[in-house]
Every structure is written in C-alpha cells, then in structure tokens.
C-alpha cells in the first residue's frame, strides 16, 4: 500500500471512529470520557488530512487548499490516484 493509500485509510479510520463517538454523544452528551475521546481523534483526523493534502492536494471541495487557487480541478482527485 503506497503512502497515499495509507493516509487515505488512516483518514477513513479516524472519520469512522469520530462518527461512532458522535452517535454515542448524541445520547450521552455529558459523558466526559467520550468527549475527551472525540477531541483526541478530531485532532488526529485534522493532522492526517493536513498531511494528505500537503502532499496530494485537496481531499474535498471544502479543503482550505483551494483558497489560493482552485486546485480541485487541476490535480488528480483522491480516487484517481493509482494504487
């Protein structure tokens, strides 16, 4: 698995964990342990996305990397990178 795929996998994993934690927090909004867990993985996700986008361009149209120039159409989309 190349570097791009590894980073994508990492982002996918962190995103899933955050989704699960968010569902739990919907029914337990005051759970301190869950909130700390969410904050920790939110930071990890941001770091992984930043690492990916710095090397392989924006992941989505919402990325801040598009602000200076519209890189979204100029570089391969995330699913177009060869494995």
């Amino acid at each position, binding site marked *: 698995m190349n570097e791009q795929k590894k980073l994508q996998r990492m982002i*996918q*994993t*962190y995103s*899933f*964990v955050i989704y*699960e*934690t968010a569902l*739990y927090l919907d*029914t*337990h909004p005051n*759970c301190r*342990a*869950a909130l700390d*867990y969410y904050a920790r*993985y939110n930071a990890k996700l941001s770091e992984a996305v930043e690492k990916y986008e710095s090397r392989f361009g924006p992941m989505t149209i919402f990325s801040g990397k598009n602000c200076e120039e519209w890189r979204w159409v100029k570089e391969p989309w995330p699913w177009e990178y060869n494995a």
Partner: protein
Amino acid sequence: MAGLLNRIRKEAERDSLFPKKPEDMISDMEYRKNARTPLDRADELFLQKILEENAAEERYGEIMSNRGVHQNSRARSGCGCAENTRNVSSDNRSGCGCGIGARNRRSDNDDNDNRSGCGCGVGSRNRRSDNDNDDNRSGCGYGIGARNRRSDNDVDNRSGCGCGTGRESRNEGHDDSYGCGCGNGRTNAIRDGFPLAMVYSPVQEWRELLEEEEALMNGTLFRELVFPWYPAACRGENNCGCQGGER
C-alpha cells in the same frame, strides 16, 4: 313523547343545514340504535372466538385437574361454568368459572390454593380479598373485560392472570408473577410484570472500545455491539446464488 318531539324540533332548528322532520329524526335514532357497524360485527366475531377458546380451556382444565383428594380438600374440575358458583378453602380448582358472565367471588384466607383456568370468559370477574399464601393461580381472569381486583399482601404465584381488555391486575408484595396477561396460563410470554407493548432497552455505557482499525472492520467502535452475521447455508441441489453461506 311530546317532550321528545320538542327536543327534536329544537335540534332541527339549530341544524339549519340539514333540516329534517322530527319523524325522520326519530327513525334515524332508532336506526342508529340498532345499527351494526363493522366494529359491532368485529366484536361479535371476537366474542365467538373467545367462546370457542373458553370451551377448549374448559376441556384443558378437566384434563389437568388434580384428582387426588386430600383431607378437607375437594377436587373440582370444570366447576362453576355458571353464575354465582362459589369455591371454598383448600381447593384444587381447575377450569372453574368458565363461561360468559361467570364469576368467582371469594373471601379467601386459606393457603395452598391451586386455581387454574378460573374465571375465563367474557366479562368474567375474580374478586378476592386474599391474605393467604402460596396461591397458585394460572389462567385466571381471561376474556373481554376480565378483571382481577385483589387486596393482596401475600406471596403468590400468578401465571396467565388478568388477560383481557380493561383488566386491572395488581401485583403487590413479594409476588412472583409470570406470564400475567397471557390468558391461558400455559405460556410465560410476559415475565416479571413487564407491561405489554413497551420496548425496554438497556442504556449503553462508554466501555470496551475497539482499536480504530478493528472498529472499522467490525462496523462499530464498541465491542458489545459486534454482532457478526452468519448467513444460512444454501440448501438443495440447485445453485441458489448464495456466496459463502457457511459458518
């Protein structure tokens, strides 16, 4: 009759949109009194079904009745299939009080009663003032409008009691009630006094988290929510198209 006509005339005056002659309104009232709506007919079908089931219960009570006779005790089976039948102490009663309007009225302070299938039927009632112990009541009070009114401070075992529309079952003290409300006393569909038609779900806790990669592969972050699916194996000679259907 004159007062009725006057009332109808006043109603007719108020009802200016659809004015009717008093004679027509009287005939309408009589029609409504005798009208058989689909709900009326449905109730009648349900009543018929109840009667058929009560007949089956009576036969079951006879089969299951305890025919052993103890001192000062009597074994009765299929008793009370009529109104106002009364049963007294140390009895083994089965299938008592079956039938439409059957009633079991007891002031009962004895012990070790075994009542099964009592009070079945439409409008059946079990009224007890009961301070004894170790009663075993099964299948009591089944039917439309069945009621179990108890002033009860003892240790009872009630199964299948109080089934029916509009029942008032009460479990007090250290009662061990199984299958109350199931109707025939032979099933334990409802245990521990849980009322019908309510969903009970334990509250999830923040514990036993999987590692992130493992969570993604299992579809959940929580180990307690891991429920692997094992599809049934394909059967028959023809290829049913299943993929990997074995555990």
